[in-house]
């Protein structure tokens, strides 16, 4: 359901029906997770490979995801370097989880910040191997360019550290990334409220990825719906062309008015 028909998000040539991407971690139960995903209307759903039993075709987590309706985006969370991320990605593909991959290389468990060097290295390898790579990255405009040059399908700068709910704190850097980008820019991580998501979309981000804020809400289904609405509103506002922010009220022509008789 798009407010603006014709304004579809396209990633790697595939039209995506929602600009809200969601995660599957931290929910109180798999049932709650499934209900929230349904309510979000998200097409792209990311799942941590470390949570999935790739040897078990009847894995509980995968059983709860309707792959007819969603595009499964396995992620490599837990990977400490490029080699581990690449290994996980190959296994996911071999296990039939597709070729789309959210690349996460987060070597420290505290803030789960992405390692730029290893992320770029892994992206180069995985793109060469035919994966559609969506890399989680810090809001670094040059790194975004490098990842794009490496052939990534999107760039996914963080709004704030994962799970922090602090909102769109990296606005200035993300604006530069958006200005430069030729691939969709997805603000990933740290968005704690629907208003944060709207903020990112209003600023020109193509999409957002939200997990914690939905998963740990008192009512994950209602929060998923709220995010879906905010994402639509934010995108609509962006397309409507927001006026620039000013520090003061401004008379119409204070400096040159004298020229008019």
């Amino acid at each position, binding site marked *: 359901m798009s407010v603006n028909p014709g304004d579809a998000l396209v990633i790697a040539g595939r039209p995506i029906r929602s600009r809200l991407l969601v995660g599957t*971690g931290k*929910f*109180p139960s798999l049932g709650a997770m499934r209900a929230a995903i349904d309510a979000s209307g998200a097409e792209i759903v990311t799942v941590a490979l470390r949570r999935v039993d790739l040897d078990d075709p009847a894995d509980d987590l995968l059983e709860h995801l309707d792959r007819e309706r969603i595009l499964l985006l396995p992620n490599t969370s837990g990977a400490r370097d490029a080699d581990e991320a690449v290994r996980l990605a190959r296994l996911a593909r071999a296990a039939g989880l597709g070729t789309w991959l959210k690349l996460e290389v987060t070597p420290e*468990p505290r803030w789960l910040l992405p390692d730029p060097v290893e992320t770029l290295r892994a992206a180069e390898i995985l793109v060469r191997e035919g994966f559609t790579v969506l890399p989680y990255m810090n809001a670094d405009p040059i790194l975004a360019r490098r990842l794009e040059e490496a052939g990534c399908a999107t760039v996914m700068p963080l709004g704030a550290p994962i799970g922090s709910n602090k909102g769109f704190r990296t606005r200035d850097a993300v604006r530069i990334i958006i200005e430069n980008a030729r691939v969709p820019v997805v603000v990933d991580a740290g968005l704690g409220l629907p208003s944060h998501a709207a903020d990112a979309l209003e600023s020109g981000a193509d999409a957002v990825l939200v997990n914690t804020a939905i998963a740990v809400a008192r009512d994950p289904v209602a929060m998923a719906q709220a995010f879906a609405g905010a994402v639509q509103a934010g995108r609509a506002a962006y397309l409507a062309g927001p006026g620039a922010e000013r520090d003061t009220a401004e008379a119409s022509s204070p400096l040159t008015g004298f020229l008019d008789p």
Partner: protein
Amino acid sequence: MTTPAADAAARVAYVLAGGEAQPADLPWLLSPAVDPWLEPLARLAHRRTVAHFGRTVQLYAPVYLSNACLNRCLYCGFSARNEAPRVTLDAAGIEAELDAVRATGFRHVLLVTGEAPDEVGLDYLEAAVRAAKRRFPSVSIEIYPLDEAGYRRLVAAGAEGLVLYQETYDRALYAKVHAGGPKADYDARLEAPERACRAGLRKVGLGTLLGLGDPVEDAVALAGHLARLRKAYWRTFFTLSVPRLRPARGGMRPRVQVSDRLLARMIVAYRLVFRDVGLVVSTREPAALRDRLVPLGVTQMSAGSRTEPGGYATGEGAERQFAVEDGRTPAEVAERLAGLGYEPLWKDWDRNLG
């Protein structure tokens, strides 16, 4: 000069307003003076835990490979002073035990031995880790301290976690309760977690045995130890445990009583000081209490534990290390967690993550 109560109120206000608690705050966070504010502090600890870890609790099973031990620890059922029969599982016994544990649903195991390098040497441990890694995506070890090369061998074999408690940071008391055996060397044990980090173990668990030393002084020292390690080994995921001394054959009674209330304060305090470390509560604690402690900040629990070698496969056994209090099956614990609004995580790691 402020009164102690006014002082506590000011510190509580600071923490509740979002200020960071430091290891140096532990004495007041663990003191009775904090009790009037324990509920709001617990709520804050709960919110921080949920934000970082989600509404999840990761489940693991300890697997005892051997109760042979050279040490003479006054609190432990494996002490060399005990005449109890000693059992060290052979290769077939290890496999049977691991298969039995896997069948109950676990995907995270903790291999445990006493300190008996002749009986349970590096070759033995390496083979056991390999056998476990064939069955489990996540294998941790709780064994005697090794040198860095030793830890490297076990990492190469598939171990990714280490559990090693200093028991107490009070050197004089440490010497008294570790009456003989290699464990009597305080510094060799103290420095082991650092060697493990250097060797590439990715998860390291620290703790003190509650009931031995002054719980507050030990907590301050433990937090300091952890804070130093976290600076240097920023890739390592750390956990803290709060094991209370349990009855064991020939074992001493607790020197200090650690009440349920102090245990609860401790979990809340550790969470407020370290928002991202794992907190572990084992089957040493009774079911009803464990259920209550979970929302305060617990992220990992054992379930259905047998603390004697061969206990899972044979259902009977050798001398156990300590008496288990929570006798529920793993499935019962998982069901209860779901009832409390938590997803029990059986698998939260992958063998391909090194």
